[in-house]
């Protein structure tokens, strides 16, 4: 940041201002951290771990080895662990950008005050998304360490899977924020929760999508968690394939679109 102050006006100067203002939005959340919030954050980490232990290891003991796309046979836990990583990156990002973001925007009216300063709606969106990714990255890093310790992936592949999990967080964070601007009441979150749980169950998380009927498979392949799971599984199982770039591209586009929609809608909602 010290370096940035040397930029004068102009594009770089403006970009620098924008980055700083987004950073201030992110930083506000760190000041707001309280013990109760940490409990929520920690439970968000244990959830996928419990699934991994009960289903990946427990149920995994009862089922045969799974065939990866490249033909290799792996333990069920190896198959399920990346799904849990992708899902936790998704839920961490969604929790922050739907429930919390909605609360700040419509309930606390926080951004009414923020937007009276030089901060712009898009900078609020960026700052909040960054915060969601920081939260998500803590989950992902901890979960990857556990996977390495349990022998479910190697340290090298875990290092590659980490940025991929950040991408998953960015992507769902953008989506969540965009969705939040359309929600009107807390009841809408029940619907959102159900949809999220359906994604969690059917996105090739516990069984390969090829085991579903054709129509269902096509539907699943259109939804985002599927791409997140495939991308991360490709990396943690050490089977990179050009198709992973396609999955990553899907997530990048969803993240950027979400952010753009969220920034625009916030401006419309709050700057009437």
């Amino acid at each position, binding site marked *: 940041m010290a370096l940035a102050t040397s930029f004068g006006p102009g594009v770089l100067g403006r970009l620098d201002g924008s980055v700083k203002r987004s950073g*201030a939005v992110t930083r506000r959340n760190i000041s707001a951290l309280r013990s109760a919030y940490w409990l929520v954050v920690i439970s968000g980490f244990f959830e996928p771990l419990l699934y991994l232990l009960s289903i990946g290891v427990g149920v995994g003991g009862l089922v045969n080895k799974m065939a990866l796309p490249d033909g290799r046979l792996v333990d069920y836990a190896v198959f399920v662990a990346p799904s849990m990583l992708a899902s936790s990156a998704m839920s961490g990002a969604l929790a922050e950008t739907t429930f919390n973001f909605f609360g700040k925007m419509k309930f606390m009216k*926080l951004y*009414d005050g*923020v*937007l009276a300063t030089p*901060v712009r709606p898009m900078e609020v969106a960026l700052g909040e998304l960054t915060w969601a990714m920081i939260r998500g990255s803590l989950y992902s890093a901890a979960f990857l360490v556990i996977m390495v310790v349990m022998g479910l992936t190697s340290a090298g592949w875990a290092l590659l899977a980490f940025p991929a999990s950040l991408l998953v967080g960015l992507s769902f964070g953008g989506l969540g924020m965009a969705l939040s601007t359309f929600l009107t009441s807390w009841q809408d979150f029940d619907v959102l929760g159900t949809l999220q749980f359906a994604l969690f169950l059917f996105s090739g998380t516990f069984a390969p999508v090829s085991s579903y009927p054709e129509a269902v498979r096509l539907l699943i392949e259109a939804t985002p968690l599927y791409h997140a799971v495939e991308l991360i599984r490709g990396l943690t199982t050490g089977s990179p394939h050009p198709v992973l770039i396609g999955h990553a591209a899907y997530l990048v586009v969803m993240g950027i679109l979400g952010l753009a929609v969220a920034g625009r809608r916030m401006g419309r909602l709050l700057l009437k």
Partner: protein
Amino acid sequence: MSPFRRPRPAPDQVTGPVGATGGAQAPDAPMIHARGLVKRFGDFTAVNGIDVDVARGESFGFLGPNGAGKSSTMRMIGCVSQPTGGVLRILGMDPRRQGTGIRARLGVCPQQDSLDPELSVKENLVSYARFFGIPRRVAKAKADELLEFVQLTERADSKVEPLSGGMKRRLTIARALVNDPDIVLLDEPTTGLDPQARHLVWERLFRLKQQGVTLVLTTHYMDEAEQLCDRLVVMDGGKIVAEDSPRALIERYSTREVVELRFGAASLEDMAGKLAGLGERIEVLPDRILLYAFDGDEAAEAVTGRGLTPSGTLVRRSTLEDVFLHLTGRTLVD
């Protein structure tokens, strides 16, 4: 004598040309310049073509009842609401294109407090200062100084929630000052506060005014307008119906004194008939009759002289409330 009434020469009104491009601004150019400013929500017109010029160091008020369009105007000036039509220049800049640059130099105290309930009193100020790009270290020092100014130092580490309405308002005012703004916008700074809390807020605002800060405030309290404003506009139904200093408005639209007459259960319309010819003007309100006269005591005597026996008689000086009533036929606060 109230400490607010210290005489202070009103700054000359300036209507010099305004550079449309912003940046270097002539020292005598208006801080705020509006011509034919319009705000519509759908097909409802909240602000209907108003002209306003606010000079540097001036304390300027929008006085009007609820729904007059005061907040809509303030939000346009604060660059958080796009004008639907007309010309608006703030500090010589165009809100449509230079909103970020303008907001950097404004301090805003909105009608509804928008404090951060998850942060402490002091953190509210520090965090807000960061949105202006003020370094954290400087922000902390500034926060201490401002907490002192609004007398909240003891509550620095408290959450916002347990604060009284008056304390929240003072914190919001402190927050509006973190960036040493050129203009401070205050939308109904004391509405809903008890008299003591109001006086504390007034006293702080008066100090700002003395320091030469340009204040723009809205209110539907005439005493607030009289105490704080060098000049004000009276707004009603989205339009400006009068503009001048509080004193000049009272002189122009009202008499020196007013007699308030109450008649218990008797019909006020009948009583008004019997009062005809007394004073300069008679206004019948739902609960009382106002008799406008240069000399109130003399007029009150004339009332009893006609054999009328009011259940209550109050002689007072004329206020902006009377001006408003005269201009619109309604009271400010119903």
